[in-house]
């Protein structure tokens, strides 16, 4: 039970109950604004009946030819609103828009240690397409799973045939 609507700049003044969670990064202003300027429809927020930001999704569409795809840049839900299916609703919107933009697939990166998220994405139909070595910098660096889900335009689901070998971050196009 939530209001799903486009993210607006002023939401940044009170998204702290989501962003203070250590797993959610707070970026510089230009990062959010560039997404709003470039892919406004891909940036949606879930708001509680009392106006609290419950979570949000940021994404974009990019790539050429058969690599034209939707990408999930950030998906986050405040701790007290987890396990209520909110992430699924937000992902639905992103996939829906990606369909409308005639994308071939949707992809996202996730820390290999983030079991909760990986399980959830699998439930939503995503598969591990490949492993990206040391994608997340830190101490130590951490690998990422590049997870994908084919959209209807990719009739033969060619975009989701998993790679057998891991790749390095510089090899991702």
């Amino acid at each position, binding site marked *: 039970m939530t209001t799903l609507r486009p993210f607006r700049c002023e939401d940044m003044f009170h998204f702290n109950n989501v962003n*203070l969670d250590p797993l959610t990064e707070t970026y510089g202003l230009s990062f959010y604004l560039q997404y709003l*300027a470039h892919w406004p429809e891909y940036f949606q927020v879930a708001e509680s009946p009392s106006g609290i930001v419950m979570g949000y999704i940021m994404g974009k569409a990019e790539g050429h030819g058969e690599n034209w795809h939707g990408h999930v840049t950030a998906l986050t839900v405040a701790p007290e*609103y987890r396990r209520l299916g909110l992430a699924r609703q937000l992902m639905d919107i992103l996939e829906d828009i990606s369909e409308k933009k005639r994308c071939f697939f949707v992809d996202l990166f996730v820390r290999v240690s983030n079991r909760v998220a990986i399980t959830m994405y699998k439930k939503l139909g995503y598969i591990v397409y490949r492993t990206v070595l040391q994608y997340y910098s830190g101490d130590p660096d951490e690998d990422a799973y590049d997870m994908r889900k084919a959209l209807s335009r990719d009739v033969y689901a060619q975009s989701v045939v998993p790679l057998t070998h891991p790749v390095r971050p510089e090899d991702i196009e």
Partner: protein
Amino acid sequence: MAGKAHVDDSVIERRLRPIYEWLDAGNNKKAVQEADKVLKKQASLPCARVLKGLALLRLGKRDECEGLVAAVVKEAPTDEATLQALTICFRELHQPEQICRVYETATKKEPGNEELLSHLFMAYVRVSNYRNQHQTAMRLFKLKPKNPYYFWAVMSHVMQGVKSGDQKGREVSLLLAERMVNNFVKEGKIEAEAEVLTYLHILETQGKYAEALSVVEGELGNKVVHQPGNFLRLKRATYHTHLGQWQAAADVYRDLIKDEHDNWQHYVGYIRAVMEISGRHSPTHSLNPPSSTGVCSGSDNSSISGFGGSDNSTGGCGGSDKSSVSNGGEDSGCDTCDKEDPVVTAAAHLAAVRKAASTQEYPDRGPFLGLIHLASTLHHHGDHTLSDTLCGDLMELLLSYITSYGDKMCCYADITQYLPNLPQERIAPFLEKVEGLVNRREDGVPLDVKAMYRDLCLVQLSRALGQHEQLTPQEHIQLADSLVDRYSQTLELTSHMAETDIRPGDAYLLLAAHSYLRGAGVREGDTTHPNPHVLLRVAAILEQGIGASRANFQLKLLLIKVYNMLGASEISHAVYEKCDLKHIQLDTLGHTLALQALDAANYTAAADIFSATLKFFMANYKDTSDPLISSYKYGSLTRIPEFVEFRERLSNSLHFATVTAEQMLLDITNEISSHSQLVEAVSQLDIDPATDKTCWDDLRDNRDLRVMDTWDPPHRQLQEVEVNANVSGEVSLLKLRNLTLRLVAAACRLTSHSSSNKASTRDHQHRSSSTKKDSNSECVNGETSSATDDATLLADLTTRLHQESQSCAQYRASSSPQLPLQGPDPSRIHLYASCNLVGVIVRHSEVLQQVHKSCTQSQGVSGEVLKAAKGEVEAAVAAGLAEAQQLAVATLVAACSKESAAEGEATQRETNNDNTFDSLSSDLSKLSLATSSPPLPRHGLERLHHLAQTLGVAAALLGCCHSLLRPIKASTSKKNKKRKDPVITPGVMTEFSSYLTTLSSQIHQLKEALSTQHKAVKAAQEQHTKEEYICLDLTSPLTGPEDAKTIGSQVELSYLKSLERLTASIANKLKYISSLRL
């Protein structure tokens, strides 16, 4: 020829590339060298010269950069590379208007160059020159008739309208924009979704909802293809609502609910429309009729002046009440007479949706809450019976909701807004039934995680429904103890959870902390101070909680608050760092710790936080400019007004203005120990004594005051009026600060004139008068006239500072109100005003004015005036000193005596320590029931900090006096023959010298007192460490002697550091003032 040019280009590109690479790598020295290499081969290459300039700028050589760049600009370059380099340079020089000039020149040379023109357009975007934007866009469109160019022009009109000061100009610009689009529509030229969205935006901004509706329902609606599925229907529903076409709105919303039964906005819209159809008009423009009164209820508490007027930002249907009343009745007329009450239909519909949803495996909450919302709205309208008949009993509805979702963390938040509709007499039975839902072990502890959530929900509901209101302080503490107990007992239930998850049981600790603080007298009125012992205990408990649940920011935010209450900013800073606040959070959460660190004399932490904060705000324009340009490029034109509003809200942030002022004051007071340092520091700061650039009416309170959890009943939550009062206090203090800063700057300018006058060399005069930008007046006696201006300005600022401080008298009388925990800390103006320190600044400024007069006017000012002023100053400073000395002693002794009191009790307990828990709680209650706990060290530290700063300002003003008097003293002692030197009665010199002596000795005393305090605290701290803080009893089910050791020593070390820094600061003042002897 083209071929040759091409070759040249590629050669140049190859030569320039290394410069770019060094610049990108941040190695500016190498970049300069590389540029010099290129320039050796090709001395005139403009791009290389600009890049060299850029590298020099980044090396801090601004002048050299400006020289290079200016020369290139004169040559009017038109090549892409040079222009781009110039753009970067001017951006970093913060001269965006120069980018416009450069491209204006270039486009004049090559009027047919589309690329250049579009860069010119973007340059105008950077500086928000909407008129020129429009003209440039139209030039582009004439050159290349592309739709985006046309819409750039349209949007420029819109922005001109939106930002126009007068209503008329606004209307005209918007109408022009609309007409431009209309023409395009008529000619069938509309192509893209973005164009339709822009059209809708223009119509919405003008309130032309009927027109907007026909756009969405017509051909153009089909062009909207990339938006979320409900986009067009939501637009329709919103427009119908604005037009008061309630039946139509209800129909759309009903359909939306059918397709998206968990999307809450549909229910709110539907129920509102249905209520209107049935003639039950909503009394307010609120979208949530039964909302609670607290700030947390979802109103956007941003605007300082219009607190409640933010509903338009929720994108809803506010503001249309006028039309709703008139049209609503008309629409509903036939419905109400022929058919049954539309509310009946709606209830049936919602009940059906709910029934359908309940068959899901994991039912969504929306359908369940929808019916509760309707019931609650009917109750709100007084239709109690109807509500019961249609929706069922509200209590039963809530109970069934809790039955289904009570095991979720969000249950309380879901239903809290409906609680006020529960009749008083049903609260007890309601809670009893909720209790019945909790699955408990024999000893009362929740059986599993689900039961834990239900138990928490019960406690939260009890608190919100006022069940904890009647508790005595002692009972609050007992309740808190039991909650800490419950936390410990349930800890193992959640041991399997990932470290990154928030443990459900953490809420027990938050509830407990709130109860402890309540019991400890926080917010129990103005006269008592919260009991420090309880604060330490809460700190220990929260530290334990954070240790077990690292992701829980609620615990951290509360702990920062508790340490702040204690004045132990060293430790608050440590917790603050764990929160990892950055970027915009430095504005929205800057109230958690920034000024508190400053006031507790934690200058290192304050400087760290200030510097990060100011860096964020300074980058705001740059950070928002590029996205603004992208919006034009990518056609997300409707975002442009939003971006501009966002940028302005940030640049008008009250926190920004405050931190800016406090940082400057810190720069000119803390470490300054000589007059030359002061003059240097002031010149670095670029303070304009003549004008204050703050837009006082536009200041915005951007603090996020909703982030901290609270379960208090509505009347106890943070109220708008409290926030407003808090903001006014902060604004008043900012006014005092800005005036003080300008006053010091004016004083420095005054003496710089006079001293160069004294040197009486023409060079000096010329230099001084030419540096003063606005002195375009008579050059003959320019020097003297501007000095007179400065004297007038100083006098004026002194009067205004005095007046401003008089208007703060209200704050002096009342002590600072402690706001609810989710709110900000009390405004700093209360403490500052109560110190009576502005008077000290005013008097010193008067002394300076007297000295200046006696130096410049040929008739010597009598020593009497100075003597009188001096008398007042002495009295003020002496009073301040006495107060501070006494306070310093009182507070710190208080801190220690608290410990010794606890020690006494500890030994007492040792004799009969069979039942630790009982004796502990009785100790605590004894402490909390004390009618007046000693003031916390925090207030003493704050007063001392303010005094130190004020003495810094006084020293600066005396330094100015000194630089006026010294040359005269020198000349009189040399028996200088210059007859035109003003005659100064020797009395002035003597008075000044004797005053300095007195003041020095007073400050010396203060310094000694601080050293004594420091020694005492250090001795106590060492003693406590040796005894392992046995005197401090923080025992609870969660904490023990180890925690007392950690917390106790950390707190005391924090005080020690504060005292050290204060002593150093005072020592600087002493050194400064001692250096002013004539």
